[in-house]
């Protein structure tokens, strides 16, 4: 069946703004349930044949991500600093969004993540809150996501995980040398490494071919469709219903609201720059934790003069970033980490917050060495050695294949002044107010990342590394993030949250926000599984007859 085509004047059942990790789930779930859906995506619609191993194009020329030269943003650490033009957020900009180019770590949040405030009490300088839902509420939807998308892993292998109703649908990916060494070091220290749950299929699944270990997962699109992106796994099913129209290159500038305060549709610029008003009975915004609040703030109306859903001033606030540093180790024999998936072993021993450490938080640690060649030449060598010239050139050839490393995934606290707002001077290429990012880590974020770094180095040393070092550029206050969480957070109280426990905007019954923006805490990063589980849960609520 060819793709549905709807006229803008026809009020479709749902508009999905941004068809990425969450939007792909919403489009597929709603269309297969019989709803008519228009999905508006600011990026292009690429396919497997369009992806290639071109590091310069993909990594250095915003090949698959938001283009900082068109989508300008400004950054400041605190509201009293002047905002400077500087890229602070990066996200997948295409049909499939971040699920196309992500590294594919796919771990679940832990049961205690949803009630840390009750367990730990308040944290000074932050606004730590319980979620309005529990792990048990979300568990069926984690399972649905894992089976619908195709996740490889070994259920029950992580002793710190919450209970699971089903195993993973696919066995773990073959362990790499980084995973073998990580496991060796961790076990010597009495820790509990486990096979990484990954959104990459280790065997043929739902008609998609298994991974060919080409090594270009992180930041790249998969050329065989083995990465379980919504592009490969869900969007074809949505389109096949004949009820879902995907419109790429469509840049939404405003959600329209009627006199009654209900959403009536959205205004967007099409590929030719023409303004289109698409009508709809309801709108689901899945534009990510940075663009979703920006769009709400741009959607001012008589009913919502401060921006849609912003009657209590919460839209954009409590933004959380990814946190944690890289440790590296040089080993005697070649690992050839440029082959196959990025991560094959993870540990959660330091995940839970421990008051004895004297700070909030903790993190997950994975074994990985994820530099591509040019990125490695630029920044991968120890900074105490030469960075150009003959000696550097000789050393770099000896290091690249013999290195392993690990990445810490540290907690990031919700702080009110960390936010997305509209810049009052700078405009994007469409003439719209640029995104202004305000972000300064809570001191406990940095303590957690530093704590993890020491553990990461211990593991590499225990694994037998000849030389171990930290990448200092990945520690300290963060000014740039790919994980955009918490800017329209979920809660029961409309005065302190933007969406309710079904991801519906408190004051607007026919508007849902389904993406990283609704996360109440950052847990320990790697949020995609949770974002997609929330999407399945919200879609299920709608399908079960929520009155809109």
């Amino acid at each position: 069946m060819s793709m549905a085509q709807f006229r803008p004047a026809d009020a479709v059942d749902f508009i999905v703004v941004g068809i990425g990790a969450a939007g792909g789930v919403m489009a597929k779930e709603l269309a297969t349930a019989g709803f008519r859906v228009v999905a508006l995506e600011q990026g292009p619609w690429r396919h497997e044949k369009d992806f290639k191993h071109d590091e310069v194009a993909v990594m250095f020329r915003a090949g698959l991500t938001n283009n900082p030269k068109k989508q300008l943003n400004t950054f400041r650490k605190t509201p009293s600093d002047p905002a400077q033009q500087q890229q602070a957020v990066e996200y997948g900009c295409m049909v499939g969004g971040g699920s196309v180019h992500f590294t594919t770590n796919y771990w679940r949040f832990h049961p205690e993540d949803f009630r840390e405030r009750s367990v730990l009490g308040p944290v000074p300088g932050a606004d730590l809150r319980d979620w309005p839902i529990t792990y048990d509420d979300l568990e069926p939807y984690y399972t649905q996501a894992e089976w619908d998308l195709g996740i490889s892993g070994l259920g029950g292998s992580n002793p710190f995980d919450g209970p699971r109703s089903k195993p993973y649908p696919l066995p773990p990916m073959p362990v790499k040398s980084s995973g073998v060494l990580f496991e060796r070091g961790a076990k010597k220290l009495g820790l509990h490494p486990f096979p990484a749950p990954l959104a990459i299929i280790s065997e043929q699944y739902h008609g998609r071919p298994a991974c060919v270990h080409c090594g270009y997962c992180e930041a790249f699109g998969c050329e065989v469709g083995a990465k379980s992106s919504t592009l490969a796994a869900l969007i074809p099913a949505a389109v096949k219903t004949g009820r879902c129209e995907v419109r790429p290159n469509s840049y939404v500038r405003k959600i329209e609201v009627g006199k009654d305060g209900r959403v009536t549709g959205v205004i967007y610029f099409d590929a030719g720059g023409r303004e289109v008003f698409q009508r709809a009975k309801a709108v689901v915004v899945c534009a990510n934790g940075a663009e979703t609040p920006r769009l709400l703030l741009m959607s001012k109306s008589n009913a919502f003069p401060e921006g849609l859903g912003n009657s209590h001033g919460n839209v954009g606030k409590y933004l959380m970033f990814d946190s944690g540093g890289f440790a590296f180790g040089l080993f005697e024999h070649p690992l050839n980490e440029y082959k196959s998936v990025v991560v094959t072993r993870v540990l959660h021993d330091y995940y839970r917050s421990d008051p004895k450490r004297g700070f909030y938080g903790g993190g997950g640690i994975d074994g990985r060495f994820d530099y591509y060649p040019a990125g490695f030449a630029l920044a991968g060598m120890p900074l105490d050695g030469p960075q150009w010239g003959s000696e550097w050139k000789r050393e770099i050839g000896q290091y690249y294949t013999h290195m392993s490393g690990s990445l810490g995934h540290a907690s990031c606290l919700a702080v009110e002044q960390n936010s997305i707002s509209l810049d009052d001077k700078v405009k994007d290429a469409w003439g719209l107010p640029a995104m202004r990012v305000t972000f300064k880590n809570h001191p406990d974020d940095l303590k957690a990342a530093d704590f993890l770094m020491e553990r990461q180095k211990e593991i590499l040393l225990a694994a037998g590394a000849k030389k171990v070092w930290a990448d200092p550029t990945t520690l300290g206050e963060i000014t740039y993030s790919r994980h955009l969480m918490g800017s329209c957070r979920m809660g029961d109280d409309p005065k302190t949250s933007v969406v309710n426990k079904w991801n519906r905007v408190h004051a607007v019954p026919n508007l849902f926000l389904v993406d990283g923006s609704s996360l109440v805490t950052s847990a320990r990063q790697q949020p995609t599984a949770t974002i997609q589980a929330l999407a399945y849960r919200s879609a299920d609520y709608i399908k079960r007859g929520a009155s809109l």
Partner: protein
Amino acid sequence: MKISRREWVLAATCWAEVLRAQNSHSNQLVWFNPADAAEIQAIAAQIIPDDDTPGAGTAGVIWFIDRSLAGYDQDKQELYKRGLAETQAKRAELFPGSTSIAGLSNEQQTALLKAIEKTEFFQQMRLHTILGFFGQPVGLKLLGVQHEMHYEPPFGYYDAEVARGGSK
């Protein structure tokens, strides 16, 4: 593993961004004038020297930099103009009587670049030189990468060791 499917995506499509610049040059510079190109080439060849293995000169990095400045990195043109002028001034100061960077001895070029290595211009040139070199097969070869579209385990020494039933 069955992968008779699509060995299709050939290496030819892999480094398009760099090779498009390098292969289509037909000796026509787009943005640099020939004199400046020779100077930039000399700096690039200090960053990645052509010594016992190929370097920036052999790899034709100058063509990548030229096309980048005419295209994606147009906003770096002023930095190159200003940076090259300042580097020439530094050259004249360090080596009175010299007339070009390319005309300096190897040791003089190294000394000149050490004197400017903290500048924004040098860092940008290092970035461009690295992209133009490591963004194509010659750079992968230097790192010991045997680039293929498909690998099978074991991938490295340590997972092979475990697969053989050795050390865990």
